[in-house]
């Protein structure tokens, strides 16, 4: 999963939760405009974010929610319970989708229908006419979902018989009606291509939404087409294909019986009463062979165009394919009396009630029992919560949805009555009463005993026969899952937001742990030297190794927590560069690289200001005006690259521009004029050294002070800031080609490796990353040049400074027995310097604490640390000393 999606999910969860909270707050203070405004903003943001990804289902629902909230904000729609319920349901749906995205990375196609329904429900709250987005097809689809009138009868009988055969052998058959938006051509859609993608098309038709106008008035780019097709593809595949246009598409699963429509001339002359009576008798006796004979006979006597002949042909087909389906056969024969198509809805329901498919019926029964039990449980909840009314309504809706399975208006009326009563009394008792009274009857409906009664009172015209895909889906188990309030599900948040102080405390604790751990070797040494128990000493050392390993891992883990990607600072640069370059009239292309590089939070924070400074400098001094660039043979658009990368335990940040570079001669002259260097230096320094002069304090080359840079507080500030966090800054520049600034920083500053040195019977720490080498210099090898001591190391002169002198300790450094001085060679601003100390000790890992309070103003020290034996170690900062 990509990091953007990760971030989206974690943010969306936050939004989802706070939207839920705001909705709850609104229940108690419905008039609050501030809350509504906040709610709108959150839904709006969430919608916008979801639009970045391909989650049309989520975006669709949120868009509808946004529209409704916008209307509420403008006072066009009053805020009410119903609205809150719908919004909460929508949020639950969003959560469901989020879970799915997190689990499998995408949204399943089965949510298309729920999404469309939720969006429609939300939009239905908008005042009429306010919904500009809703096109005529949308409302049309909504209205006709209940009773889809499909022009199946107008299709050729042979084709329908073919499909019927296919359907019985297990093929699905779906009706797709796709009426693209009138403006769809402008959105780059090609509806013909879209329908061309539909697999298993067995019948197709294209028509116009309204009669075609005169050719002269035709607008070629105003889409009027309506595509209709029958496909044997799985409904899921069709939903997937049309998931981006749920409002423009109607996908309906067609049951085979819907195909069974005899057509023809009903004027057959005589009524076929005799044949019907014979056929029914044969059917009752189970003489199917006889029935087939009689039917064939009758068919031969009838003109093929007659309705009768058509019905007989169907009869023969059914006899051939499903001779056991007596219900359908009977209905078909009886229809000959009236010469009208039988109502297959009744027949299908009858078949189910009769237990035609025993297995399924039992399964349905079990599901129904489960649903009823769940409702009973909900009603039995004793808590007195604000949304109790909504809950009662939800239960009633579920029960009502269960009812049509068994029919009976009486039950419906009773249910509504019970709901009203429940709401009025704010008690669950009336609904429970209804459940007690009718629940068993509902379940009993699934036993064969109820057959007769069920068949006669079946008010289910379309539900079974032409089961429209959408409603069944929604009211089925899917709907039930949706109905859950989010607080029923245990939270599955995987990211924690932790206050930084808590992490800092962890850091401190691990620091103390490292110090405590470091005392074990001292203990081991004492055990051996003082008490003479060598075995114990060895055991302590073994234990120390274990503790050491765990402590290091722990430290590493905590360090990881503090790591942040540098994109945190990089993200502000596009805007900064755009604004600045606009102001300067320059054209700059910013390239960011390695934004995912992670460094310690403190380092990231320390980086921000210096980097802004450098970038501004590059824009102001580095990149030239477009005209100058063109004259120099460079593209008018300058290129500024900011690159972060990791090298061992350091992070490198390079800021590269392809501007005019730095002219060393110019720098030298300026530096001399400003008194930064003297005449002798002016003659002596190399070009690179001259370029480095820009880091000198109080140096600025620009004649006029702009509001961007040129005040002379420039690169020296950058360098100091870098050094404060243990970083370095270097510059490479070529005149006319560009400049490269390289910042090098430690990945983390938590643990420092220092070398302990001794001087005047005190110990001091020196950061290891500054130490080049340690040497013993014989007294004879030290020469005096004027007041300074120097020595020659591997052919180069190294100045020697005494630590005691640097710290103003009035003592000579002590040589060892061989009259050699201990010199610590450190690297300072590109030069090696030897610091003479009394003796070297070991190196240790310490947690460096900066000096605070009065000591904070003390130059020469970068901080202090506790050693394992409890002594305080002052860590020197040689840069400030020398």
């Amino acid at each position, binding site marked *: 999963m990509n990091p953007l999606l990760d971030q989206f999910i974690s943010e969306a969860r936050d939004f989802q939760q706070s939207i839920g909270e705001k909705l709850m707050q609104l229940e108690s203070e419905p008039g609050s405009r501030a809350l509504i405004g906040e709610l709108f903003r959150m839904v709006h943001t969430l919608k916008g974010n979801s639009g970045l990804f391909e989650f049309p289902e989520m975006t669709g629902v949120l868009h509808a929610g946004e529209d409704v909230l916008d209307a509420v904000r403008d006072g066009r729609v009053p805020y009410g319970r119903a609205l809150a319920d719908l919004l909460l349901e929508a949020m639950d749906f969003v959560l469901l989708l989020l879970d799915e995205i997190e689990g499998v990375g995408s949204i399943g196609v089965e949510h298309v229908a729920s999404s469309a329904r939720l969006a429609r429900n939300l939009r239905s709250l908008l005042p009429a006419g306010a919904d500009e987005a809703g096109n005529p097809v949308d409302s049309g689809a909504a209205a006709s979902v209940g009773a889809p009138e499909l022009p199946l009868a107008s299709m050729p009988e042979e084709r329908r018989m073919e499909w019927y055969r296919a359907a019985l052998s297990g093929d699905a058959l779906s009706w797709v009606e796709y009426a693209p938006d009138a403006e769809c051509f402008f959105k780059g859609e*090609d509806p*013909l291509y879209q329908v*061309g993608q539909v697999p298993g098309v067995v019948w197709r038709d*294209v028509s116009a939404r309204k009669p075609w106008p005169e*050719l002269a008035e035709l607008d*070629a780019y105003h889409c009027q087409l309506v595509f209709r097709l029958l496909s044997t593809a799985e409904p899921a595949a069709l939903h997937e294909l049309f998931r981006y246009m749920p409002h423009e598409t109607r996908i309906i699963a067609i049951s085979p019986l819907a195909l069974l429509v005899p057509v023809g001339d009903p004027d057959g002359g005589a009524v076929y009463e005799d044949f019907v009576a014979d056929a029914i008798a044969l059917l009752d006796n189970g003489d199917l062979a006889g029935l087939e004979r009689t039917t064939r006979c009758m068919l031969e006597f009838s003109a093929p165009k007659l309705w009768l002949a058509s019905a007989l042909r169907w009869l023969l087909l059914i006899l051939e394919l499903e001779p056991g389906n007596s219900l359908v056969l009977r209905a078909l024969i009886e229809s000959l009396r009236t010469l009208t198509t039988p109502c297959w809805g009744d027949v299908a329901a009858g078949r189910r009630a009769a237990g035609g498919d025993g297995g399924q019926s039992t399964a349905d029964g079990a599901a129904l029992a489960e649903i009823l039990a769940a409702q009973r449980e909900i009603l039995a909840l004793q808590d007195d919560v604000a949304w109790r009314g909504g809950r009662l309504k939800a239960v009633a809706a579920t029960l009502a949805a269960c009812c049509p399975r068994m029919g009976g208006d009486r039950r419906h009326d009773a249910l509504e009555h019970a709901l009203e009563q429940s709401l009025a009394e704010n008690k669950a008792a009336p609904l429970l009463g209804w459940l007690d009274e009718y629940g068993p009857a509902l379940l009993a409906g699934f036993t064969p005993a109820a057959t007769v009664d069920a068949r006669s009172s079946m008010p289910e015209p379309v539900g079974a026969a032409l089961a429209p895909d959408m409603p069944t889906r929604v009211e089925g188990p899917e709907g039930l899952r949706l109905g859950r309030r989010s607080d029923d599900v245990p939270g599955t948040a995987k990211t924690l937001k932790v206050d930084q102080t808590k992490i800092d405390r962890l850091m401190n604790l691990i620091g103390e742990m490292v110090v405590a751990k470091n005392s074990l070797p001292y203990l081991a040494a004492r055990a051996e030297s003082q008490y003479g128990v060598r075995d114990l000493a060895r055991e302590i050392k073994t234990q120390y190794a274990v503790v050491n390993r765990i402590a290091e891992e722990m430290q590493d883990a905590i360090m990881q927590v503090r790591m942040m990607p540098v994109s945190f600072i990089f993200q502000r640069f596009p805007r900064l560069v755009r604004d600045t370059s606009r102001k300067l009239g320059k054209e700059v292309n910013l390239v960011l690289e390695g934004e995912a590089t992670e460094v310690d939070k403190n380092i990231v924070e320390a980086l921000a200001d210096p980097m802004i400074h450098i970038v501004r400098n590059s824009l102001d001094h580095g990149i030239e005006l477009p005209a100058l660039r063109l004259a120099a043979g460079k593209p008018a658009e300058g290129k500024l690259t900011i690159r972060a990368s990791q090298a061992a335990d350091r992070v490198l940040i390079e800021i590269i521009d392809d501007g005019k570079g730095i002219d060393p001669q110019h720098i030298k002259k300026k530096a001399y004029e400003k008194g930064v260097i003297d005449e002798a230096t002016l003659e002596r320094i190399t070009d690179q050294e001259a370029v480095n002069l820009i880091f000198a304090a109080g140096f600025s080359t620009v004649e006029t002070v702009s509001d961007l840079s040129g005040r002379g507080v420039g690169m020296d500030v950058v360098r100091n800031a870098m050094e404060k966090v243990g970083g370095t800054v270097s510059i490479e520049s070529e005149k006319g080609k560009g400049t490269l600034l390289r910042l090098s920083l430690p990945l983390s500053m938590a643990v420092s490796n220092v070398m302990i040195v001794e001087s005047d019977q005190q110990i001091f720490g020196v950061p290891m990353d500054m130490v080049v080498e340690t040497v013993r210099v014989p007294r004879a090898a030290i020469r005096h040049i004027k007041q300074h001591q120097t020595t020659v190391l591997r052919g180069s002169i190294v100045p020697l400074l005494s630590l005691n002198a640097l710290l103003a300790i009035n003592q000579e450094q002590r040589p060892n027995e061989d009259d050699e001085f201990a010199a610590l060679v450190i690297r300072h601003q590109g030069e090696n310097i030897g610091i003479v100390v009394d003796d070297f000790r070991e190196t240790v890992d310490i947690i460096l604490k900066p000096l605070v309070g009065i000591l904070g103003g003390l130059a020469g020290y970068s901080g202090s640390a506790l050693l394992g034996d409890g002594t305080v170690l002052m860590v020197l900062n040689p840069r400030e000393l020398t």
Partner: protein
Amino acid sequence: MAIEFQEKTVLLKGCVGVEEAELLLEWLQKTPCGQVDLTACTHLHAANLQVLMAARPTVLAWPKEAALLAWLTSSLQST
């Protein structure tokens, strides 16, 4: 060019895009008894289909592409 106008016939070739619908419509408006040759057509943008459906020109030759043929015949051949 995916569309080629001759005196009385328009030839649609290859993949006919959305921009061609305008040209096709103009030509059909100017040439009331124009005929269409779709032999070499592999795909037709729906806007073109719409124009053809509204104008109902005589189709001299149907496309060879089976999928396109199925859609075109069902939309242009029925009454």
